[in-house]
């Protein structure tokens, strides 16, 4: 094992591999900073170039480098302009952006980078260590358990919308229904497409995210006619952000573990980890009333989680050849093309390649965080630019990001529709996070539910795993409601 680890490290530390890794980190960071152009798009663009390469290690260095750092850099846009740079940084907006508006952008950024670093370091360590433990558990999960697991995620985010649990749950269901739009290949039925070919492929998650979050924030900023930050000072928050992470180390570790677990579950990956970690933080942390209003723990949890998730998604990819997400699916294609055969061999004959991946994940994260820390202050200063320099640029980013979904004129129409929906939701206090999560989970939920129904009829509801998970769903829904009722009861008693 030690020999393989050294061999893997030697392969990564060659000039060619290091150059490729630096290139990957640079591209990954740039892509993370540009809303709408996600990691999968970049990996897809890179595939034709890497497939002609003979040595697998530089290919690992480049692609894993791109994949590992996208979520670190995407915190810039999530925190500074409330537009998620990648799907893994959506939850960061909820507290990161209010912090930026309060003049604490530097603190939020440094906290997010250090949390990302820790998540990015814990992930690779767990990657190998957890394989023998987690494998039997995942293999024991069937489609019924996966369905209830996704339902649990949706219910948690829905009810954690503070005092509006009904609206939160409805928003989540609306999101699932949006995910069903398009041609259902299995049944051949055109669902909610109304004869429009554009809708046959469904509605892009990027467009929904940009419309629901990007445009309403932009409208708010433009309406107030001020700069993004309501306080024109950076303060000394940069060091405080680093300290915040160490003061909340246990939360960082727990969030990283959630990220690894979500990444590990095949197909669940991508944009769910940050929401799960955020919901976990809100539910488990003391003094949680400031979540959603600029609590640094709301930045730490999703950022640690989304970076750790990347390592987690390599576990099923390497061990079983089942990609944990879109990015790992593309990397799997490249691996196969350059002679790496994902599967049990990755733990035997190809172990040095596995270590090369782990080293790349680790080193890429360190480089990316160092770069982001070095340039955080200059970029954070864009908070102080007057609104008329920021608003048009954000809108241009949002429009281009939406158009990049399918390069179709109707992408922009869809953006306008979801912007109007996001605007109305925000205006009337409807939580938008559950809607987005519903869109993310919708397709998987439908598949798991259908598989459960066809394989077990209604008997799947009686499976022990399902009963346990359903109990957790009910507890997640009812506990916050009970807490709210108790709180309002004590408020009434105090008032009396």
């Amino acid at each position, binding site marked *: 094992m030690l020999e393989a680890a050294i061999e893997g490290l030697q392969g990564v530390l060659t000039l060619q591999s290091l150059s490729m890794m630096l290139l990957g980190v640079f591209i990954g960071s740039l892509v993370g900073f540009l809303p709408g152009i996600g990691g999968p798009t970049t990996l897809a663009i890179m595939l034709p170039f890497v497939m002609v390469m003979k040595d697998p290690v530089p290919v690992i260095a480049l692609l894993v480098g791109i994949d590992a750092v996208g979520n670190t850099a995407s915190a810039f846009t999530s925190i500074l302009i409330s537009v998620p740079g990648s799907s893994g940084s959506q939850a960061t907006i*909820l507290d990161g952006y209010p912090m930026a508006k309060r003049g604490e952008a530097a603190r939020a950024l440094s906290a997010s980078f250090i949390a990302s670093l820790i998540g990015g370091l814990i992930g690779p360590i767990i990657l190998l260590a957890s394989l023998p433990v987690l494998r039997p558990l995942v293999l024991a999960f069937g489609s019924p358990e996966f369905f209830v697991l996704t339902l649990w995620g949706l219910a948690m985010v829905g009810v954690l919308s503070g005092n509006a649990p009904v609206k939160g749950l409805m928003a989540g269901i609306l999101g699932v229904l949006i995910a069903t739009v398009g041609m259902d290949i299995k049944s051949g039925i055109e669902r909610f497409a109304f004869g429009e070919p554009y809708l046959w492929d469904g509605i892009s998650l990027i467009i929904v995210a940009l419309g629901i979050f990007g445009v309403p924030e932009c409208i708010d900023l*433009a309406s107030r006619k001020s700069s993004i930050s309501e306080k024109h000072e950076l303060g000394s928050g940069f060091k405080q952000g680093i300290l915040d992470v160490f003061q909340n180390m246990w939360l960082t570790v727990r969030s990283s573990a959630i990220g690894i677990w979500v990444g590990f579950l095949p197909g669940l990956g991508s944009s769910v980890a940050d929401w799960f970690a955020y919901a976990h933080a809100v539910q488990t942390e003391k003094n949680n009333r400031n979540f959603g209003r600029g609590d640094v723990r709301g930045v730490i949890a999703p950022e640690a989680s989304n970076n750790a998730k990347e390592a987690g998604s390599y576990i099923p990819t390497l061990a079983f050849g089942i990609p944990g997400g879109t990015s790992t699916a593309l990397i799997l294609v490249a691996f196969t093309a350059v002679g790496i055969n994902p599967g049990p061999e990755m733990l035997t004959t190809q172990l040095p390649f596995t270590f090369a991946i782990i080293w790349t994940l680790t080193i890429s994260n360190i480089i990316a965080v160092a770069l982001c820390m070095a340039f955080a202050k200059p970029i954070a200063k864009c908070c102080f630019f007057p609104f008329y320099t920021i608003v048009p640029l954000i809108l241009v980013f949002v429009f281009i990001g939406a158009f990049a979904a399918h390069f179709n004129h109707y992408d922009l129409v869809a953006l306008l529709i979801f912007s109007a929906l996001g605007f109305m939701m925000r205006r009337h206090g409807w939580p938008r996070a559950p809607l987005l999560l519903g869109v993310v989970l919708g397709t998987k939920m439908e598949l798991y539910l259908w598989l459960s129904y066809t394989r077990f009829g209604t008997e799947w509801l009686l499976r022990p795993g399902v009963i346990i998970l359903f109990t957790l769903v009910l507890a997640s829904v009812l506990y916050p409601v009970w807490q709210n009722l108790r709180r309002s009861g004590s408020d009434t008693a105090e008032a009396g």
Partner: protein
Amino acid sequence: MSRLKIENLLFTLFVAGVLAGAVQIAREWSIRASIIILVLGGIGLLLAVAQLVLDFRNLSSTKSAVALTMEAPALETSSRWGSCEVWVWILGFYGAIHVVGFPLAVPLFVFSYTKVYGGGWILASALAAMSWGFVYSLFDRLLHVPWPESLFSVMIS
């Protein structure tokens, strides 16, 4: 009864209508295509009824809207007309993309917006040039993005 509360009720009615419409349409489909819509849509409809009851009760209440834990605060009602102004700009940008195409609409929009709200000529021009340079270099030259045909290009061709 405030205008915002009535708007709130109407928005809940709209969401309830969407859910009811989705369930109604899905009833015609096979179970394979409709299972998730019927199961979750049904639950959604029950929740919508509960929310409508809450909204009706809220109409006569003097309490203000509640704050949310996982959500940015609701938009201020005073910004209503300011919001309309921004919507005009957004729709204007969308219209410009149709008329002159993406590569020209981007600098045109950035320049106009910056200039109208107080930016100087140099700043507005620099931002417009920067945005055009970004769109042209990355999307046009590097990625060869197929921009949609504009009315302007159709007219001159």
